[in-house]
């Protein structure tokens, strides 16, 4: 991995970890408890940042995929793949932490209301991104098919955002991105923004490391194809 990627990832990771410590102090010691939901509302401080990072990651996938289809630059495909992996991880966090809140707040783990259903659909679309990529004999064709899935999947993100306004929905409405401005009390808003910054920095750090890993995997695969006879290690595919 190039020194530039390694150092950038390390710096972002350290900053992200520092903010993670701050946000945990805020969540468990500092921020006030929400009056009607009680302590379970504190799930909000990881649920919303995870959703934000997932949407950002899938946005990166869509942009890189679109430009990859145009320029066919391998680096864009590697960046899209790295971002998609992170996006899947953070969507999983959203889908697993949401029901834990819903069980206490709504009395049910899950309901097929628009935002939850669309988020689950987003998860499956990006699961398809990985399946399509690895399901073709021709890896170049697999990358192009995956790029199309990556673009189509990201079109759902604005729909998820507006779903609570346009459909009958149980999910709480936005409290930050509203025309009137944030409606949260100051301490809750500060904790939320710290969580958003921490998750964003951590995602960018791991995204860089994952991108570096993908570059090395492909360099290794090219060396093997060029006849150097270097065997691919276990769990590493070209």
């Amino acid at each position, binding site marked *: 991995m190039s020194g530039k990627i390694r150092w950038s990832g390390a710096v972002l990771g350290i900053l992200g970890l520092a903010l993670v410590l701050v946000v945990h102090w805020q969540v468990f010691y500092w921020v006030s408890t929400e009056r009607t939901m009680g302590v379970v509302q504190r799930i909000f401080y990881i649920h919303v940042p995870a959703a934000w990072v997932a949407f950002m990651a899938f946005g990166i996938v869509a942009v890189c995929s679109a430009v990859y289809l145009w320029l066919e630059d391998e680096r864009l495909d590697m960046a899209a793949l790295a971002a998609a992996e992170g996006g*899947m991880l953070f969507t999983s966090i959203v*889908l*697993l932490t949401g029901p834990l809140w819903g069980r206490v707040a709504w*009395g*049910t783990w899950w309901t097929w209301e628009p935002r939850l259903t669309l988020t*689950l659909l987003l*998860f499956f679309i990006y699961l398809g991104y990985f399946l399509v990529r690895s399901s073709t004999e021709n890896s170049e064709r697999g990358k192009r098919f995956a790029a199309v899935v990556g673009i189509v999947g990201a079109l759902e993100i604005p729909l998820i955002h507006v779903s609570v306004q346009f459909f009958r929905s149980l999910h709480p409405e936005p409290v930050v991105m509203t025309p009137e401005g944030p409606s949260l009390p100051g301490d809750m808003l500060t904790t939320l923004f710290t969580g958003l910054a921490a998750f964003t920095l*951590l995602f960018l750090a791991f995204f860089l490391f994952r991108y570096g890993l993908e570059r090395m995997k492909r360099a290794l695969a090219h060396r093997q194809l060029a006849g150097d006879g270097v065997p691919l290690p276990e769990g590493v595919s070209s």
Partner: protein
Amino acid sequence: MSKLNRWFLALALLIAFLPELAQAQSGLPDAGALASQNLRGYTHMFIAYFIAWGLILGWVVSIARRLGRVEKALRE
């Protein structure tokens, strides 16, 4: 199918069937359950944080292990 894809597929199946299992539980919480609402809130909150950081840590470890393997293969 790569190891990573198998993990994603297993996670997808878990998420897909979780709601069905949840719906099998009937009714609203009774008075006793409502009384323990606050304690349950703590449990659910800690489980949520544990899951989130567990998944993130798992991804970091996975990247580190794969990096180690590829770096070793490139050195050889």
